């Protein structure tokens, strides 16, 4: 199991690096090398680290562990092909990690990041509507059943296109430098993880790399279906590059615009689901 975890972490960090490179190239800059984020993480691991005196020690350390545990659990979920609803739960619990990081240190910048994270609670809802739509179509939320369904009926991407859009939006709202990443906007320094440095920062970085990999992998597994590991990785790479294009081309929205866009999307998908559930 540990080999999967480590491999997924490195893959996710590599994806982050590719993300930065693509954004830089689109914007006409040379950009960092694609393994920059891996080096970054290793560099942070080697830095002096302690806990700030003002911090709430338990939460300060626990959120690092919890964020690793959550995304490890999500990866294990994909490996053992358990329920998609549980993946949704883990994703929502990631919100607690964001709040916890922001509130633990006592720094006002981190706190602002946490408040923005509270405000953008609407970003979880597209995933719920996506899960609901998949349940309506396949009649099951277990990943193995979804794969079996796709083996017979072709990829869900075509049938459940709005759900795919919703999940895409969810991934977009969690990716760095994206239009919805108001929680780590530069006017509040680094947002909610401003005060996590050294080891803590390095491990958070690794956990977020794992998160990116797991979310993209979920997208491919759920909407394109079982296509073998090399093709899956290729699909993940293509997906990441499309996300980078979106991030490079759009400015960061203001907090309330961001929430409005996310809420509107959720509302539209909810209407589509109600339409499907009632009339179809």
């Amino acid at each position, binding site marked *: *199991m*540990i080999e999967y975890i480590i491999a997924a972490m490195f893959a996710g960090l590599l994806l982050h690096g590719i993300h930065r490179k693509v954004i830089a190239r689109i914007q006409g800059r040379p950009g960092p090398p694609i393994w920059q984020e891996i080096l970054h993480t290793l560099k942070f*691991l*080697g830095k002096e680290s*302690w*806990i*700030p005196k*003002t911090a709430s020690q338990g939460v300060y350390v626990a959120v690092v562990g919890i964020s*690793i545990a959550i995304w490890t659990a999500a990866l*294990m979920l994909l490996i053992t092909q358990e329920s998609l609803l549980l993946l949704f739960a883990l994703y929502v619990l990631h919100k607690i990690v964001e709040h916890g990081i922001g509130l633990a240190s006592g720094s006002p910048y981190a706190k602002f990041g946490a408040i923005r994270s509270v405000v953008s609670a609407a970003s979880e809802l597209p995933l719920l509507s996506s899960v609901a739509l998949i349940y309506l179509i396949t009649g099951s939320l277990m990943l193995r059943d979804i794969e079996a369904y796709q083996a017979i009926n072709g990829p869900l991407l075509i049938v459940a296109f709005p759900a795919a859009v919703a999940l895409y939006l969810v991934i977009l709202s969690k990716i760095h430098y994206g239009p919805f990443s108001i929680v780590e906007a530069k006017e509040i320094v680094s947002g909610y993880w401003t005060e996590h440095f050294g080891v803590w920062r390095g491990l958070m970085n690794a956990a977020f790399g794992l998160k990116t990999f797991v979310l993209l992998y979920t997208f491919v597994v759920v909407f394109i279906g079982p296509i073998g590991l090399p093709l899956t990785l290729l699909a993940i790479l293509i997906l990441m590059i499309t996300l980078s294009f979106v991030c490079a081309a759009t400015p960061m929205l203001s907090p309330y615009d961001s929430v409005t866009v996310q809420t509107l999307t959720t509302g539209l998908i909810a209407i589509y689901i109600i339409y499907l559930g009632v009339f179809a």
Partner: protein
Amino acid sequence: MKRHYVQLIAIISGILLIVLSVAGHQDIVQVPVAAVLSIVLAPVFLISVGLLFSAEVIDGDIPFMGY
């Protein structure tokens, strides 16, 4: 916290993780059980390894309170 303890935790959890992984592949332990135990052990292992890395900079014990 003493560096010694961190080292011990890192080694024990690392060995356990590897054992679990092998056992999971060899069907000695059921895969879901191995997965759950790995989820619990992974943060412990990674945090302690990270703390060991950073302890290289400041020789000796790992200080926990600062500022």
